[in-house]
């Protein structure tokens, strides 16, 4: 296993150095990353990379085929536009993680911020901690699995895709144009497979799924008056 010390390499040459190292050895370790931005951005190929500390923004964006494990925090927009592969984060993340992903798997063992899976088109995102607000907003495919609590307006205006949750208060926190449903057998076995692979302690029978409305036509209420007719003056005056 080769080990790269990022503090010696610097941010401009970092991804080039990683690509070079991957040609030599399929397993790589990065140390002293110190929350740098764009770590492993755009790397294609096979192999696995382990990052020993935290990274900054856009970690593993446009990833294709690699398996990246971060042993610290990641910043915003991690796994952005990912094509394939695996991104495993052991601690917490920022917001907008897994935005627009096409395929692959992102596993977050800690908590995530708001707008996770923004416009996701495929792939899986597993959040073992809590998700923030607007989880899975405007998803166009893919599956988002949240083990902890979901935030407000979960699944807002999804076009397609699924959100699996076991939060008992999901119904009050759902966004518009989605509904709560039970899992099919196929979905249950897929979930159990994922949990086994990533050593997550959960069972698919605890979960419900949020699906977009079947008609496919989203309804929006632009003007929402809060009517209180009983407060009009005429009701306080005795007439007659």
């Amino acid at each position, binding site marked *: 296993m080769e080990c790269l010390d990022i503090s010696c390499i610097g941010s401009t040459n970092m991804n080039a150095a990683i690509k070079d190292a991957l040609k030599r050895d399929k397993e790589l370790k990065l140390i002293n990353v110190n929350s740098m931005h764009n770590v492993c951005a755009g790397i294609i190929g096979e192999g696995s990379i382990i990052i020993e500390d935290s990274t*900054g923004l856009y970690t593993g964006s446009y990833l294709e085929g690699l398996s990246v494990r971060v042993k610290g925090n*990641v910043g915003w927009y991690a796994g952005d536009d990912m094509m394939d592969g695996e991104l495993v984060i052991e601690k917490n993340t920022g*917001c907008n993680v897994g935005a627009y992903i096409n395929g692959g798997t992102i596993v977050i063992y800690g908590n995530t911020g*708001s707008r996770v899976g923004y416009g996701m088109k495929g792939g899986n995102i597993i959040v073992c901690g809590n998700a923030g607000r607007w989880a899975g907003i405007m998803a166009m495919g893919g599956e988002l699995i949240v083990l902890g609590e979901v935030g407000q307006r979960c699944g807002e205006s999804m076009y397609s895709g699924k959100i699996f949750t076991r939060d008992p208060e999901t119904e009050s926190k759902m966004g518009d144009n989605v509904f709560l449903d039970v899992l099919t057998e196929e979905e249950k076995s897929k979930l159990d497979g994922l949990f086994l692979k990533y050593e997550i302690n959960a069972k698919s029978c605890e979960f419900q799924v949020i699906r977009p409305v079947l008609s496919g036509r989203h309804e929006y209420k632009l003007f929402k008056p809060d009517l209180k007719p009983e407060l009009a003056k005429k009701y306080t005056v005795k007439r007659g």
Partner: protein
Amino acid sequence: MCGIAGIVSKREIDISTSLLKMLSYIQHRGPDASGIAVFAKKDKVTLRVSLSSEDKKEELISIVKKYGTIEDSNLVPAGKTIPIMEIVIDMDSLLVPELHMAINKVSGLAVHSIGNDIKIYKECGHLDQLTQKYTIDTGICRHGIGHVRMATESAEDINAAHPFVSPFYPTLAMVHNGQFTNYFNMRRFLESKGAKFKTMNDSEAASHLIAYAMRENNGDLEAALRYAAEQMDGIFCIIASTDKQIGFVKDKLGIKPLLLVETEDYILMGSEQIEFNVFDANIYADEMEPGEVRVWNV
């Protein structure tokens, strides 16, 4: 478009050096200007004023003499921007708001900070320009805030750099990341209450608004931050601090980042995880919820 940082320490340490290091990690977020505010307690009132040219020096000194005696004064030459005067004054601290207003009324003079427990250093360009121009007071204190700026809708001018203060409550300093969309309505409201605006920067309006709210509710920072978050429209992450309190507010849409770390020794706030490496590379920050307000008493 900007980067912010805030430190609250349980023990008294040299806050300004740590703040500058934190800001150097997020320099890429704001190449136009930078500034820090530190709250070391002194006996005499320190006044830092920017002058549009060195001829304004006499006028400034004549205003200051009406309120107290000048113990020490130092003129920092213009360098790449405009000159700054640092004056230490022996005066009654209750007259500080009046002196602040009197100096701001003169066009060409802009108060950067005034008080016996607040010092603000700000300059255009990169952080090196800030450290090269001033000798920053490394006196020990327990909290401070800092900012690097990328100008959006107003000029890149030294008076438009953050942190901002306001004569309504001179010990309040605030930094802001984002853009307000109802700046002109707020400006008209605040000008009717007596505020004098020195720039066209929307964050200046927010500082006057929070300070005005604090003056009206006798120094309750949390209520003032909630009031400001309700009145101002747009996207924002604000860190505001006085000599006794420090707090932040994040807007309801949660578009700008604000991370928080709380340990036994210190509390850190910032825009990116990378800033916290100054203290400990292994600490993990939490992202704040949209609409959250939190205040600590120092």
